[in-house]
């Protein structure tokens, strides 16, 4: 009844308050890319302080107010704010909105042959709630009290007594609400709006990943919301949910009632934040699966095993959180339990990686730009995952936990893993989104510069961590044992500034190609899944000229006896 009505839409209705999943996906993409750049810039300031502690920041130092950096020299409080906001922005405002909000919104309905999401209005509100939350989070730098400085993990009691945290908690409430609305939409859409013939065993792995991610978001985020409300009450209403008895702050006994437990926050936070790691990881894995099948011209090795591993990871991700708390004085018996579950969850992750690697066997690989990014994902994510194993065992974790080793591990997973795959996704789906393709030469420049420099930044972190350099340290030179590895800090900083430089080809290429890129046909990569069966860009609000019917699995490449080496899901024969 409603679908048949076609109205000319105003600019605002079409591009600002749109209910079309494709426009919302693009809004998410542009916003999250801007946040990624902002979050990245914050850490570049920190890199100066780590390489040349106590020296005035060149160029930018003069622009900063005296309260943050008098004479261009970064104050410790400002350093802490930058660290906390880097983590928060990158995770909650950058990577997740790009992997889930942008790619999920745009391509999940296309891949399942739907006209739109199940709840278009909810979808629109999800974006705008995210936007408001993001702006609020960012504006905390100029609000009274400044930006949050208790780390992205916001451990109590520090977060309860340090300024700026109230804004952080309110902004997080917006972001949690946004992802809740998104998760409901993704789950119902996948369950309910699949095209005729698209059974679960024919669902592309990207769609599987988005569905499972939706479930993780749905169950994990409300618990953080509960924790955040309690923290907010501790701050503004002087309750003591997290504040222990007899707490001494700045040499004075706290006047609160007390009796609370600081570790309760860590439990609630990590109950969200460990599943969140898989929210960061599953969508990129889905993207890599799509690109690998397409670039190798072969079915993904072990399709069912990969999809099953996604589900297994989702369930297990709720049972491993306390491995972040081995140094908090956790009971030994509990440590054993969480060590076991942590080792167990590495099995499906390794199964997925193995399936991807075996997909390359005997393939005639097309080394396109998206394929380069996907191929790089495999060893990089491998390093990230394997370096995590020593952190899952208490004997090694106690030594490594508060060192740069953890930072290195985490960034290998999320930056050289997730972000690299997301870049690949942008190059891969760009023709579908804009009807034009990106320049491949500059894509290769972007790829090689990025991958080399990222490794130069993150690999030395392992060396530093093993040498005992603590994370969160404002001035690394104050501890003598750090001096031996201080030169690596200089190398990492130059690499990080170079990394910024190598994003310029990407940014220019991206915007230039939107308007001037080579025109692209409907299916430029000769792919099989449904998003390539509609026009580029897909028709507003309806996507497909005619609802597609699915006849086979998602990765029917190089089927023996067929002339073309790809067999689209919607083709009858």
């Amino acid at each position, binding site marked *: *009844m409603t679908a048949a009505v076609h109205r000319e839409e105003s600019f605002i209705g079409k591009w600002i308050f749109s209910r079309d999943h494709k426009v919302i996906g693009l809004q998410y993409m542009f916003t999250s890319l801007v946040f990624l750049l902002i979050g990245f810039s914050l850490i570049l300031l920190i890199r100066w302080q780590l390489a040349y502690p106590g020296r005035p920041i060149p160029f930018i130092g003069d622009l900063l107010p005296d309260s943050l950096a008098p004479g261009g020299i970064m104050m410790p409080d400002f350093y802490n704010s930058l660290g906390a906001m880097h983590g928060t922005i990158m995770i909650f405002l950058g990577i997740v909105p790009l992997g889930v909000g942008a790619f999920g919104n745009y391509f999940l309905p296309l891949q399942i042959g739907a006209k739109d999401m*199940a*709840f278009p209005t909810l979808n629109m509100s999800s974006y705008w709630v995210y936007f408001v939350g993001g702006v609020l989070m960012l504006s905390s730098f100029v609000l009274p009290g400044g930006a949050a400085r208790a780390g992205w993990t916001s451990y109590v009691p520090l977060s309860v007594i340090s300024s700026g945290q109230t804004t952080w908690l309110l902004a997080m409430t917006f972001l949690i609400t946004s992802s*809740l609305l998104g*998760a*409901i*939409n993704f*789950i*119902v859409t996948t*369950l*309910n*709006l*699949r095209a005729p013939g*698209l059974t679960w065993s024919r669902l592309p792995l990207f769609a599987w990943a988005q569905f499972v991610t939706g479930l993780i978001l*749905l*169950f*994990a*985020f*409300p*618990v*953080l*919301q*509960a*924790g955040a*409300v*309690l923290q907010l*009450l501790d701050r503004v*209403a*002087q*309750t*003591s*949910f997290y504040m222990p*008895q007899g707490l001494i702050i700045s040499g004075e006994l706290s006047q*609160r*009632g*007390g*009796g*609370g*437990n600081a570790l*309760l926050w860590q*439990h*609630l936070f990590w*109950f969200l934040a460990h599943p969140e790691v898989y929210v960061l990881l599953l969508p990129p894995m889905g993207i890599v699966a799509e690109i690998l099948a397409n670039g190798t011209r072969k079915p993904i090795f072990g399709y069912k095993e990969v999809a099953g591993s996604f589900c297994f990871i989702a369930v297990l991700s709720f049972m491993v959180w306390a491995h972040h708390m081995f140094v908090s004085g956790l009971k030994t018996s509990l440590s054993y339990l969480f060590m076991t579950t942590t080792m167990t969850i590495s099995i499906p992750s390794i199964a997925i990686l193995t399936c991807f690697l075996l997909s390359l066997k005997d393939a005639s690989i097309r080394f396109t730009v998206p394929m380069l990014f996907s191929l790089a994902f495999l060893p990089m994510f491998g390093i990230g995952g394997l370096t995590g194993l020593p952190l899952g065992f208490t004997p090694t974790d106690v030594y490594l936990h508060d060192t740069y080793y953890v930072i290195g591990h985490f960034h290998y997973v999320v930056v050289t893993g997730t972000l690299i795959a997301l870049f690949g996704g942008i190059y891969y789906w760009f023709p579908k989104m804009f009807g034009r393709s990106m320049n491949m030469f500059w894509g290769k420049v972007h790829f090689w510069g990025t991958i080399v420099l990222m490794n130069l930044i993150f690999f030395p972190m392992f060396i530093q961590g093993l040498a005992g350099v603590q994370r969160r340290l404002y001035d690394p030179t104050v501890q003598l044992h750090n001096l031996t590895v201080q030169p690596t800090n200089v190398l990492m900083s130059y690499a990080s500034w170079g990394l910024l430089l190598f994003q310029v080809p990407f940014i220019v290429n991206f915007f230039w190609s939107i308007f001037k890129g080579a025109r692209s046909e409907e299916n430029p990569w000769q792919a099989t899944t449904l998003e390539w069966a509609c026009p580029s860009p897909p028709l507003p609000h309806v996507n497909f000229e005619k609802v597609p019917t699915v006849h086979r699995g998602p990765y029917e490449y190089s089927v023996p006896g067929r002339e073309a080496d790809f067999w689209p899901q919607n083709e009858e024969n």
Partner: protein
Amino acid sequence: MNDTRVLDTSTGIPNGKLGMWVFLASEVMLFGGFISSYVILRTGSPYFSIPPREMLGVPLATLNTFVLITSSVTMVLALDAVQKGSVKGLVRYLSATLFLAFCFLGIKAYEYHHKWLEGITLTSGLFGSFYYTLTALHALHVIGGIVFISYLLAMALKGRYDSREHARVEYAGLYWHFVDLVWVVLFPIFYLL
């Protein structure tokens, strides 16, 4: 319209109904987070003191529990009425549900006032902190339900619902029963145990 939409979905369940169930699943986790925090501190913190039962006003809370359960019954009767095509019955039972919901909030407000005067406040101890946080969160959900049901009532008076078109009454019912269920958990853990 409703019928074709049902046939359109892969599961055969309308989007709205499935969406409501998924939403309620996340609500379980939200209340679950709060309630487990309460349980952990109540059993684990040596400074957790429980006020004597006389201060809690168990009879009044029992009455309130009864009021809320009755409102769930009237909600079911409202759905039953509209399914049988009786708009008059729908209006009658929705109004009854609203009335009971306001009764619940009124009794709750009286309880808050009384407890506060007796010295159980938000900062008087962990019990008070949890009591007010959780019951207020529940009351917010009751208010959300009141808004939803008032909207249904307004639409029912305009004649929008009949024996074929009544999906929203069902969704509101699902939500309302959930809110009821949460109270059935909160009542024993704050008043009886």
